[in-house]
C-alpha cells in the first residue's frame, strides 16, 4: 500500500494513464468476440482498447454489452441473411426479355441530342432500353490496384424486375437539352460533391439541394443534411422531412463516393435501391435521376485500393440497372470530365476526387444536356 502511495506521488501522470487504460483494455479484450465481434482485431499491433474506441465512434458503448446481447445475435442473423441473399441472386432467373419497346418521342421542342457515345462506354444495365434514353456507363482503365472485397462477382445480376417501379415497361423518353428553368422544381441529393455543385455550380437559387459531406447510402437516411431551397435559404433537415414536406418535379441523386471502401457492390446497390424506393414513395410524380458516380483521377485510380475507377464503374453499372427510362433515368457526367482512359482529368480537380470550383460548370452542362422532358 505504501509502495502504491509512493508510486502515485512520484509518477502521477503515468499512474493516471495506466489506471485509465486498464478498464478500457479489459472491456476491449472481454468484448472482442461479443460486443466488438464485427471489428477486425490484430492484437500484435493494436491494443484491445482500440476496439472500445472504434465502438464509441460507431455509437456502440461498453455498457451495451450488459443490456443487449440478444440484439447482437439478431444483427448477426440479419448479416447472415444478407450474405445468403447476395449468393442467391446469382441463381436468380435471367432477365425476362422485354416485349418490343414502344418508343415514345419526347416533345418536339426538346432538341434530341444523344451524346456520341465514347468508345469505352458500355450500355450497362440499361440493356433493354433504347439508345439515347439513358446515358451509357462510362468505362475506365483498370490499373489493377483494386481490393476485390469492394466488388461483387462480374456475373452478379442486379435489377431483374418485371413489375414495380424499376421495371422497364416499354414506354421510354429520350434525354435532351433543357434551359435552367427546368431545374426550378428539382432537388439534388448527395454528398460533398453535391455540396460543391450547390456552392460553385450555377443552379443555386434555382434548384433545391439536400447534401452534406461524408454522406453515403448507408447513413443518409439517419443524418441531418443541409437543405438549400430554391431561393438559396438553408437549414438542417433529414431526407424524410424534406421529401414529406415539399413536392419536387425531379429528384437527382448523386451518392457513392464515401462508401467505395464499405461493403461490396451488391450491398451498395441494395441500399441505393431502398433510397430510390423511399423517394418514389414520397414523390410519386417526380422524375428520378440516378447520377453515375464521378470517376477519380489517374493518381487516385492507379494507387487507391477502393477509391478507383474499377470499383466506381462496377457500381455505376449496378445502379444504372435501376433506371427504367420512363420516370427513372441513369445519367453519367463522366464524359464531360474524363480523359480517354476514363480518368478524371487532373487539371479539373485539386484532390483527384472533387471538381475544382472552376470546373463545376461541366457538371452543370452535363445536367442541362441530359434531361428528360415527358410529353403530356
Amino acid at each position: 500500500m505504501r509502495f502504491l502511495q509512493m508510486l502515485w506521488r512520484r509518477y502521477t501522470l503515468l499512474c493516471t494513464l495506466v489506471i485509465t487504460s486498464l478498464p478500457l483494455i479489459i472491456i476491449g479484450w472481454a468484448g472482442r468476440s461479443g460486443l466488438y465481434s464485427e471489428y477486425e482485431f490484430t492484437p500484435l499491433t493494436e491494443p484491445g482498447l482500440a476496439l472500445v474506441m472504434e465502438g464509441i465512434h460507431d455509437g456502440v458503448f461498453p455498457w451495451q454489452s450488459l443490456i443487449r446481447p440478444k440484439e447482437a445475435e439478431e444483427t448477426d442473423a440479419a448479416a447472415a441473411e444478407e450474405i445468403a441473399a447476395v449468393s442467391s441472386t446469382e441463381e436468380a432467373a435471367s432477365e425476362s426479355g422485354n416485349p418490343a419497346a414502344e418508343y415514345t418521342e419526347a416533345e418536339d421542342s426538346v432538341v434530341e441530342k444523344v451524346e456520341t457515345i465514347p468508345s469505352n462506354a458500355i450500355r450497362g444495365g440499361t440493356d433493354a432500353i433504347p439508345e439515347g434514353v439513358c446515358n451509357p456507363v462510362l468505362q475506365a482503365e483498370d490499373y489493377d490496384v483494386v481490393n476485390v472485397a469492394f466488388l461483387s462477382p462480374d456475373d452478379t445480376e442486379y435489377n431483374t424486375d418485371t413489375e414495380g417501379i424499376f421495371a422497364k415497361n416499354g414506354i421510354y423518353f429520350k434525354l435532351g437539352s433543357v434551359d435552367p428553368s427546368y431545374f426550378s422544381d428539382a432537388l439534388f441529393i448527395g454528398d460533398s460533391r453535391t455540396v460543391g455543385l450547390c456552392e460553385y455550380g450555377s443552379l443555386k437559387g434555382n434548384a433545391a439541394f439536400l447534401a452534406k459531406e461524408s454522406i453515403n447510402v448507408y447513413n443518409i437516411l439517419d443524418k441531418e443534411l443541409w437543405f438549400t431551397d430554391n431561393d438559396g435559404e438553408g437549414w438542417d433537415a433529414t431526407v424524410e422531412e424534406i421529401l414529406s414536406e415539399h413536392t419536387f418535379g425531379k429528384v437527382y441523386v448523386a451518392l457513392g463516393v464515401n462508401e467505395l471502401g464499405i461493403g461490396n457492390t451488391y450491398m451498395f446497390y441494395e441500399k441505393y435501391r431502398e433510397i430510390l424506393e423511399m423517394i418514389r414513395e414520397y414523390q410519386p410524380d417526380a422524375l428520378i435521376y440516378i447520377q453515375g458516380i464521378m470517376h477519380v483521377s489517374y493518381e487516385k485510380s492507379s494507387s487507391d485500393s477502393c477509391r478507383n475507377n474499377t470499383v466506381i464503374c462496377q457500381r455505376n453499372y449496378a445502379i444504372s440497372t435501376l433506371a427504367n427510362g420512363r420516370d427513372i433515368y441513369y445519367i453519367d457526367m463522366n464524359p464531360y470530365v474524363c480523359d480517354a482512359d476514363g480518368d478524371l482529368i487532373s487539371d479539373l480537380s485539386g484532390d483527384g476526387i472533387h471538381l475544382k470550383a472552376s470546373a463545376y460548370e461541366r457538371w452543370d452542362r452535363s445536367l442541362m444536356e441530359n434531361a428528360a422532358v415527358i410529353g403530356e
Partner: protein
Amino acid sequence: MILFNSLAFLFRFFPIFLIIYFLTPARFREVVLFFGSIIFYAMGGLRMAMGLTVLTIINYILGQMVFSADKGGVKPANKRAFYAAIAIDAGSLILFKVLSGLSDKVVLPLGFSFYLFKMISYQADLFRGEITRRPDIIDTVVYFTMFPQVTQGPIMRWNNVGFEKRERTVSVKAFNDGLFFFVLGLGMKVLLADPLSLLWYEIEKIGFESISTPLAWMGAIDFSLRLYMDFWGYSLMAAGIGMMLGFHFVVNFVHPYWACGVAEFYRRWHATLGAWFRDYIYIPLGGSRKGNLTTIRNLIIVWMLTGLWHGITPNFLIWGGVLALLIIWEKFVVDGLISSFPIIGHLHVWFFIPLTWVIFAIPDLKDLLIYFERLFPFFGSGVNVNTGDFMKQLLIYWPFLLVSILLCTPHWYRLIVRNRKKLPVILILTAVFWFSVYRITISESNPFMYFSF
C-alpha cells in the same frame, strides 16, 4: 512506417521497450536502446534499415580514423578520412535528394536528411577536436540510430545531450517531465495539426483560383499554424522520449511566432537545424566577421542550402532566397528601427512568415502565382469565387485556430509547463492523451476518415 502517433508505437513498441530498458542494468541500456532503435526503424522498411546500418558503420570506421588519439592535439586529425566521410555523407544526401525529386520510384529513406546531418556534425566535431573522449562503437551507433530522433530530428549533437557519460540513469523528475512533454506533443500533433491540415486540403479542393481573399489569408495562417503544431509537437514527443530514457531535453522550438523579426524567428524555429547550418556552414565560411559583402554572400548560401535541404523543387529555392533577403533587409536596413520599435519586428514575423510558408507549401510555380493573386487580389481576379467560403470554413475551424494561436504565445505554454505537477493539469493531459488515442484509432481503422467526402 512507424510513427509516435500510432497505436503500434503507443501501446506495443514503447511500453515494452521501456520495461526492458528499465529492467536492464544501467550500463547495458545503450545496447537495449540500439536494438530497440533498429527494430523501430526496420518497421519502416528493411532496406532502409540496411542503408542506415551501412552508413552508420562507415561513419564509425572513418570517425575512428578522424579522431585524434592524442589528447593534447599534437597529432593532427586525419584529414583524408574526414574528407572521405563528408564526401560520402553529403554525397549520398545530395544523390538521394536529387533522385527522389526526379523520379517517383526513388523514395527518400525515412529521416535520411536528419541522420546524415548528425553524421556530418559528428565527423566535423571529431575533426575539430570537440569530442574529447574516443567514441566507442555502441555510443556511435546509438547516437546515429536512436529511435526518438531518427525519423524527424531534432538534430541532436554529440556534446549537448549527455553522450559523454556512459551509464544512463533516469531521475524521477526527468521521467515525469519526459512523459509530460510526450503527451503534450502528441496532443498538438493529433488534436491540432491534423485537423488544421484539413482546412488546407479544403482550399486545394476548391482550387486556388476560386478562393476568396479572406480564405486565402486564413489558408496562409492555417498552414503556418499547422506546420508549427505538427513539427513542434513531434519535437516535444522526441525530446520527451529522450528524457524518459535519460538524455537531456533537446530544445528545437522556442515560441518562434513570438519572435521579434525574421532572423530571430529562425533562431527559435527548428533551432537544431538552424544551429547546424550556423556551425557547419555559416561560421566556416567566415560568418559575419569578414565584412558586409561576405556576410551577405554567406547568408544567401546558407538559406539556399536550407531551402534545398527541405526539397529540390524550385519553390524551396524561392523560399530560401526570400528568407535570405528578409534577413539581410532586417540586418542592414531596419535593424535600428526594430530595436527601437520591437512591434515592427513582430509585424515582420506575422506578415512575412505566413507568406513564406505559402511558398513552402505550393511546389507548382503557376499555382503559387495564382495563390498570391488571391492573397493580393489587385493583381488578378478569381474564377467562380464563392464569397461565403471564408465564413463557412471559419465556423468549422475556429477552435483549432484559436487554441493553436494561444499556444504560439509563450504565456499559455509556460502556464501549463509551470503547473505540470498539479492534479488539474495532469487530468487535462490524461484527457488529451485519450482523446488523441481515440482520433488515432479512428483514423487508423478508417484511413479515409480525414477525407470523408
